[in-house]
C-alpha cells in the first residue's frame, strides 16, 4: 500500500514584492533562505551567501524569510521582529547583516546598540517589537516555511526546490550554476 500523501520539499509560497530580496529582479536563479538569526549554521552560511551574490551578481538573487526556532533560540524571534521593523523603514538588509555579524550580541541591550548602528531609532523599534507589531509577518514566513518542508535552519530553496547540499561556497556555487543552466 502506498502512502497517499508524500512529504514534499518544494517552496509553496511564491516570491512576491512583499519579500526581502537582494539581487537583480530578473535573476535566473532565486534562492529563498529560511533562517534564524541566532542559529550558528545560518551564521556560518551568511558570508558564503554574500560571496555567492558577489560572484554571481547577474544571475542570482537572495530572498530572506524568517524561521525563528524560538524554543531553542531565545533571542531569535525578537531579532526577526527587529529586522522587520527595520524593513518597514527600508533598512532590512543592513539590519540582517548586522544581526549575522553580531550573533553573540543579540540580547536586548546589544540589539538596541545594533539598531542605532544601522541608523535607526532604537526606542521606536523597541516599542514596535514590544507591541508585537511585526509578529504576524514573522509568523507568516514561519508557517509558509513549515508547509514547504523547512526542517531546520538554514533551509534554502533554489528556484523552488529544496537545496539538499551543504552551505560552503563551492556547494552554493554548484547549486546556483546548476539551476542557472537547467
Amino acid at each position, binding site marked *: 500500500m502506498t*502512502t497517499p500523501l508524500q512529504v514534499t520539499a518544494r517552496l509553496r509560497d511564491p516570491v512576491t514584492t512583499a519579500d526581502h530580496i537582494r539581487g537583480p529582479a530578473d535573476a535566473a536563479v532565486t534562492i529563498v533562505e529560511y533562517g534564524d538569526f541566532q542559529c550558528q549554521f545560518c551564521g556560518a552560511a551568511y558570508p558564503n551567501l554574500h560571496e555567492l551574490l558577489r560572484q554571481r551578481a547577474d544571475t542570482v538573487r537572495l530572498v530572506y524569510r524568517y524561521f525563528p526556532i524560538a*524554543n531553542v533560540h531565545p533571542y531569535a524571534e525578537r531579532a526577526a521582529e527587529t529586522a522587520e521593523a527595520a524593513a518597514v523603514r527600508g533598512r532590512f538588509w543592513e539590519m540582517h547583516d548586522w544581526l549575522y555579524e553580531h550573533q553573540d550580541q543579540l540580547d536586548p541591550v546589544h540589539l538596541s546598540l545594533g539598531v542605532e548602528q544601522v541608523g535607526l531609532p532604537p526606542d521606536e523599534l523597541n516599542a514596535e517589537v514590544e507591541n508585537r507589531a511585526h509578529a504576524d509577518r514573522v509568523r507568516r514566513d514561519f508557517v509558509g516555511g513549515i508547509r514547504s518542508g523547512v*526542517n531546520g535552519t538554514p533551509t534554502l530553496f533554489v528556484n523552488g526546490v529544496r537545496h539538499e547540499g551543504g552551505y560552503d561556497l563551492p556547494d552554493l556555487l554548484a547549486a546556483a550554476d546548476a539551476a542557472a543552466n537547467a
Partner: protein
Amino acid sequence: MSDPNGLIQPGRTAPGFTLPATPDGGLIGPEQFRGRPVVLAFYPADWSPVCGDQMSLYQSAAPVFAQYQAVVLGISVDSIWSHRAFAESRGIEFPLLADFEPKGEVARRYGAYLPQGEAARALVVLDPAGTVTWSYLSPPDVNPGADGIFDALDQLAADRKVMAG
C-alpha cells in the same frame, strides 16, 4: 513483536497504549485525545546534535498544530529522565513518551522499531476517532519536517467538511 508488514498504514485502528510522559511521568496515550487529531512522532533518540532537530521544530510549530486542535506526542525508547532533561533543554512543552519498558513495545506495535534498538523516524497521524489516516517512514538521519503532517491534517479537515455537508 514488530509488525511484519512495516509501518502501520492508513485505515487501521491505532493500537491503544499509555506510556510515562513528560513533564511529570504521568501516563499518556492517544485514546485520551479522542475527538482531536493526534500526531504520533516516533524518533530514534533524544539529544541529536543539531539546531533544528525534529522535536524542537514541532515545538516551534505548536501554534500551527493548535490551529488544527492537533495533539503531538513524541515517542522514543529513551527513559523519562532523559526525556525530561531533553524537553527542558529544548523548551519542548508537548509530551515526550518513554517507550522504555518493555523496550520499544509501542514502536513495535506500530511497525516503527529498528533492529538496532531504537524507534524509527516515523510519523503517524490519527483522525479524531483513532483511525490511522496517514503514516510516513523517514530515513533515521533525515528530519521529515512537518509539511506531510499538515497536509494530512488539511485532508482530515476537508473530509470532515464533506461529511458534515
